[in-house]
């Protein structure tokens, strides 16, 4: 029954995506995503944020979301390309790829590394989208039983888990989170109408648009950061294999060594994406260490020297995690990574509220989005392998021009929100904050999650209290809420697990603290 219903919904979705105009948006999205995403330091979250204004006046959100799916895939694969070719991973999800991928490139196997990344992304993306297709609607109806206390608890879990797992210092992560929560407080209180932290400014009554925060923190902050290092430390340009890029696709043995890591990567990526754990960082690193361990057991230790498994696994996990991230985003309206937070902002621009009702109210939109994931994956595969040489040309553009262009687009995006220079100033202020956060090694993702989730969390918290007549025990008497709150507390301790385990065993810990990459 369910499968049949899903089938016809999805078919309908495909019908919409395959409209020539929508296909054009998908191709355009992949192209733009690739062009911007290939720049070092610029991940999918920023790419989508920078390209948001293109869709501001779309009459139909469907075209916009098809394009976003394309942008995401393009930007993600662009990040892998940079990691492999010049060893500057644009976001933490590509760090694992860079380790073996760049070694392969140095050995003249850049093309094989890019191919296993692209095909692995396609395989993982397709499988995980199938999983998303069948899991999303049932979970959506399950989520419709969620009450305010559950929402509060799960929002809290998402914020805390991401903060605890991503970045190097718990204190800095939590500071980032509280700053984000504070930015979310600015403006009129949605329940009582009281202005909060508006400092008498009429402009601040509406709060600070999340697009301004994202563009400011990521685009302007990153540009200022790059600018501060430009003069004194010019990067040694990494050398590209000449003529090798067009030949040397996967050999038979490459295929044999790649397919199992692809599947294992998918199996890690999807569930880790679906639970609030910060998106792709954790599964990519897990996939890397699992593949390395398996290779060692087989006595074939090429790891650290350009092992293709170390590219195939993490890349598959990276792509699969995106479909996973969409599960809580679509069914609960809960973003669990910076990229998902940007997607949520995009949904809100079009007045679409993700959550249990989404499948009822915007059925066409959801199924078109899911169908566009299949198509986006395919377009990525078709466009990237033959055209890789073209994308790489972007990296030959002198950096002063690249970053001047990024600032122009950042300004365009925030300017077109309301058509005044005021937004540009606001983004600059936030960009300066982002600059110092980079200098001081603060993670960025918790700020974004705080801004986006803070208001939701507060609203659900207060609604729950109103329903219970101010009885705070509601958060602990409802089993589901209680379980989630306990998980939240546990999440705070995960990074210290190695130390705790070591102390229990009475040995010295190997590492002080468990970390999974940096933020995106």
């Amino acid at each position, binding site marked *: 029954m369910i499968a049949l219903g899903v089938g016809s919904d999805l078919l309908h979705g495909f019908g919409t995506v395959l409209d020539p105009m929508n296909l054009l948006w998908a191709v355009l999205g992949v192209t733009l995503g690739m062009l911007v995403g290939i*720049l*070092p330091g610029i991940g999918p979250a920023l790419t989508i944020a920078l390209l948001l204004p293109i869709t501001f006046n779309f009459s139909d959100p469907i075209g916009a979301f098809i394009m976003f799916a394309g942008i995401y895939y393009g930007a993600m694969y662009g990040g892998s390309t*940079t990691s492999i*070719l*010049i060893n*500057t991973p644009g976001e933490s999800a590509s760090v694992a790829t860079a380790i073996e991928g760049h070694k392969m490139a140095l050995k003249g196997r850049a093309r094989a590394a890019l191919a296993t990344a692209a095909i692995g992304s396609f395989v993982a993306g397709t499988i995980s989208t199938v999983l998303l297709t069948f899991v999303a609607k049932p979970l959506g109806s399950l989520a419709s039983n969620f009450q305010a206390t559950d929402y509060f608890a799960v929002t809290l879990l998402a914020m805390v888990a991401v903060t605890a797992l991503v970045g190097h210092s718990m204190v800095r992560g939590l500071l980032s989170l509280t700053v984000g929560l504070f930015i979310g407080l600015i403006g009129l209180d949605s329940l009582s109408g009281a202005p909060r932290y508006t400092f008498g400014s009429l402009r601040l009554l509406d709060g600070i648009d999340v697009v301004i925060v994202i563009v400011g923190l990521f685009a302007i902050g990153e540009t200022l950061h790059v600018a501060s290092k430009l*003069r004194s430390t*010019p*990067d*040694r*340009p*990494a*050398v*590209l294999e*000449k003529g090798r890029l067009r030949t040397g696709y996967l050999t038979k043995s490459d295929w044999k060594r790649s397919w199992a890591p692809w599947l294992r990567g998918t199996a890690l990526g999807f569930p880790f994406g679906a639970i609030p754990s910060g998106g792709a960082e954790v599964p990519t690193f897990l996939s890397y260490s699992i593949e390395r361990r398996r290779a060692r057991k087989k006595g074939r230790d090429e790891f650290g020297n350009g092992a293709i498994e170390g590219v195939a696994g993490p890349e598959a996990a990276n792509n699969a995690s995106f479909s996973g991230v969409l599960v809580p985003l679509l069914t609960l309206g809960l973003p669990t990574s910076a990229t998902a937070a940007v997607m949520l902002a995009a949904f809100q621009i079009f007045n679409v509220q993700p959550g249990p009702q989404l499948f009822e109210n915007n059925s066409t939109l959801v199924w078109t989005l899911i169908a566009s994931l299949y198509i986006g994956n395919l377009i990525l595969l078709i466009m990237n392998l033959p055209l890789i040489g073209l994308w*790489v040309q972007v*990296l*030959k*553009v*002198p*950096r*002063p021009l690249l970053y001047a262009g990024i600032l122009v687009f950042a300004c365009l995006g925030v300017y077109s929100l309301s058509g005044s220079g005021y937004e540009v100033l606001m983004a600059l202020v936030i960009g300066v904050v982002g600059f110092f956060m980079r200098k001081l090694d603060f993670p960025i993702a918790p700020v974004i999650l705080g801004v986006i989730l803070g208001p939701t969390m507060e609203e659900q918290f207060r609604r729950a209290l109103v329903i219970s007549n101010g009885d705070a025990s509601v958060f602990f008497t409802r089993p589901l809420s209680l379980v989630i709150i306990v998980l939240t507390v546990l999440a705070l301790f995960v990074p210290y697990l190695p130390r705790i385990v070591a102390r229990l065993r009475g040995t010295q810990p190997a590492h002080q603290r468990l970390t999974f990459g940096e933020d995106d």
Partner: protein
Amino acid sequence: MKILVGYVPTAEGEAALDAAGREASLRGASVLLLNTSRGDAYIDARYANEAELETASAKLREHGVEVTIQQAVSNGDVAGELLKAAAAEDVGLIVLGLRRRSPVGKLILGSTAQRVLLESPVPVLAVKAPTPHDD
């Protein structure tokens, strides 16, 4: 005496290399091979990798001359880097490869070779790639 050759792994770079090798064996000089990147982009094919440098110096040794290799990232000023190297070492001749350019292309892009020609204290030998294909 030393001959300074500005080397890039392209056709005109190879031409410069050949010319430098011939001149050096004629004059009994050693060769200082300088490979520079402007360093303003993320990647630069003109910045030679180890294999390319190895091939280049082997080519020079075929002429029976001694080779020193220098690589530098020039912060956007390739000509300045060449002139600096020429001043620092006992250089008697600079050899450069020239790209074939239309007059208009030259106007827009400006030229490293032009600055070296104008400012070099020592003679400059400018050579073009043998076959007329642009890179």
